[in-house]
């Protein structure tokens, strides 16, 4: 095979420059700034500041509340990821079998994808309104005295529900196209070998969907960790109160609401490290067990 290449060394670098500049200006530089300001306690207007070393980090490490928020974020991420993927897979498998009206059925499942997170949160706010929300009424008819913003478990349930609802369509689209790319011959061969639809799914279809599933797993974890901010913000009505919070929302609460630059920078650095670790774990450990065709 003939290897294509550049004749000079400078041309590729020159072509890379715009992209590198964007990455440096918009990613590395702010990240470096956050690391730097996490070692200071600074007056937000920029007049006074004290170098405090690792104080902002030890403050976080010793805070029982921060630990509580981290634990909630973990549970929240697991629940949102599990239900978003599980429901989407179920719907995709079922939709794959539909022949009549397939298009409209799929469109109906996909449209929520277009809803922005704050709007999704707002719809959740209406559904869970304390005095007349239809879902509040529904919960009450089952004897669950649901109260958004009062009971923290109820608020958490609403956050998970709205976040899952918003994410299922994305996963659905990917799973459906993943299913449709499985060769017919493979399915037919499986059909001859095994009469149980369940076993055929777990032994043949599911492994073949693994690359899609792995990609979606990463997407869903980052979604639950970061992109649910708008949903959380709207559902707590801008008041943290005794509501459950996610780590990203806590960065906002301390940094933007409370003007604690040092403290929220330290929290951002913690999140950066978390994302880095997550990426390494996923690609090193999980990816090895997945076989792409």
């Amino acid at each position, binding site marked *: 095979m003939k290897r294509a290449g550049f004749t000079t060394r400078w041309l590729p670098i020159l072509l890379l420059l715009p992209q590198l500049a964007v990455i440096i200006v918009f990613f590395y530089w702010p990240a470096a700034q956050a690391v730097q300001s996490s070692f200071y306690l600074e007056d937000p207007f920029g007049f006074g500041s*004290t170098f405090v070393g690792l104080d902002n980090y030890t403050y976080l490490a010793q805070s029982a509340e921060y630990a509580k928020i981290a634990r909630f974020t973990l549970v929240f991420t697991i629940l949102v990821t599990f239900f978003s993927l599980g429901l989407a897979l179920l719907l995709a498998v079922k939709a794959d079998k539909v022949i009549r009206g397939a298009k409209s059925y799929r469109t109906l499942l996909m449209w929520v994808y277009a809803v922005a997170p704050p709007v999704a949160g707002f719809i959740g706010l209406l559904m869970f309104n304390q005095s007349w929300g239809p879902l509040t009424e529904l919960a009450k008819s089952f004897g669950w005295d649901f109260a958004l913003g009062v009971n923290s478990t109820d608020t958490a349930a609403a956050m998970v529900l709205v976040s899952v609802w918003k994410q299922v369509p994305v996963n659905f689209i990917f799973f459906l196209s993943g299913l449709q790319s499985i060769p017919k011959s493979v399915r037919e061969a499986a059909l001859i070998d095994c009469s149980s639809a369940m076993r055929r799914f777990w032994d043949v279809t599911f492994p073949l969907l693994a690359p899609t599933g792995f990609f979606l797993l990463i997407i869903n974890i980052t979604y639950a960790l970061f992109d649910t901010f708008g949903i959380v913000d709207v559902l707590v009505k801008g*008041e943290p109160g005794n509501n459950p919070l996610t780590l990203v929302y806590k960065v906002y609460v301390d940094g933007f609401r409370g003007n604690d630059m040092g403290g929220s920078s330290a929290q951002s650095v913690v999140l950066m490290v978390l994302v880095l670790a997550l990426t390494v774990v996923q690609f090193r450990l999980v990816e090895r067990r997945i076989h792409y065709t």
Partner: protein
Amino acid sequence: MKKLTLGTAAALTLMANTAFAETEITWWHGMGGALGDTVNEIAKGFNASQDEYKITPSFKGTYEETLTAGIAAFRAGEQPNVLQVFDAGAATVIGAKGATMAVQDLLESNGVEFNIEDYISGVRYFYADADGKMIGMPFNSSSPVMYYNVQALEKAGVTPPKTWEEFQTVTAPALKDAGYVAMTQSHLPWVFVENFMSRNDMPFATNDNGYNGAEGTKILTNTPELKAHFTAMADWKEKGYFEWFGTGWGDNQTPFEEGKVGIWFGSSGSFGGLSKQDLPFDFSATYLPYWESVTTEPKQTFIGGAALFAMAGKSDEENKATTEFFKYLTSPEVQYMWHRETGYVPITTAAYDMAKADGHYDRFPAAEVGIQQLSLEASENTRGYRMGFYVQIRDVMNREFGRIFTGETSVDDAFNAIEKEANELLARFAKTQN
């Protein structure tokens, strides 16, 4: 020839512009909805009142968002001339020496006479420094007051309670028997901590409630009196006298508006909104109750709401314009208009007298409660507080109070947590001030 005409025209236009040049200033605020309309009206009134200056107000979101926008703009050198900052942000903006000009200095250096005695007692010192110099101009000043449903109290056969003892033994049981939730409230830290301290004449923080500097300031909330109050509230909730609908303001106001609740603690600034609604009952207002077991001489409350700060780094000409705007804003006519439309208190005695003379309080007696309460006897505990990272401290209080009312924590544990976390935050804030 044509060129010459064009040149002349351009020159003439330039001259005309200089002759009629207005000095333009900007005003960032956090007043949405109907309040925002009234803000725009004030700006319009100022612009129409003279032709040298022009002020442009812009709405920047919630109080917190407005402050953050102002800070970001200041760091970029793009700050507005006038920035509205709310009570909880006062320590941040006043602590940053060099970010603002003291409004008292600004007025005096531009030849406007300033006498703090012209302002209503409860308004004077909240946004002042330790020496009593006014830094921020109180704008939408409010105080927590007790609203009540007149028909509900009549039906229950009670009068508005003067003390918490009366509420507990007489008012609340009667209201409950009459089929009402006796009480809701919309802001626990503001009504039942900050102004509880003032009303019951107790210190809120060391260092003279924090006014004498951030260094070493400690919160004084872990007291038997305050804990007893919250123990009582938890007990009232148990008995069905009190209901808590979460930390959101509106969720707690709505049941009162629906006529399900006898007494609601809100802001004197809620008056405008309540009176514009078609409520299914008559409402009135009176002073916050106090605990007779704590004090027999209840004191005044202090203002909440927000103040206007003149940002530093502006030209003399623009500062002159800002001065003129403040002069216009504090004039009795404008203050009375603002008071009448919104329910916020007028900040000067002249404006208060004008409202009285106009018969405003004969028509709406409830509108006077806030200002009367702010004018009750003062003490060293009633000027307000100056604590940094106070937004977070309020968040901590709201969190712990919520947990008390949902049974997740005990009153003792809650107040220990508040004391510990608030003092950590105060110590951290002190380090930002060096």
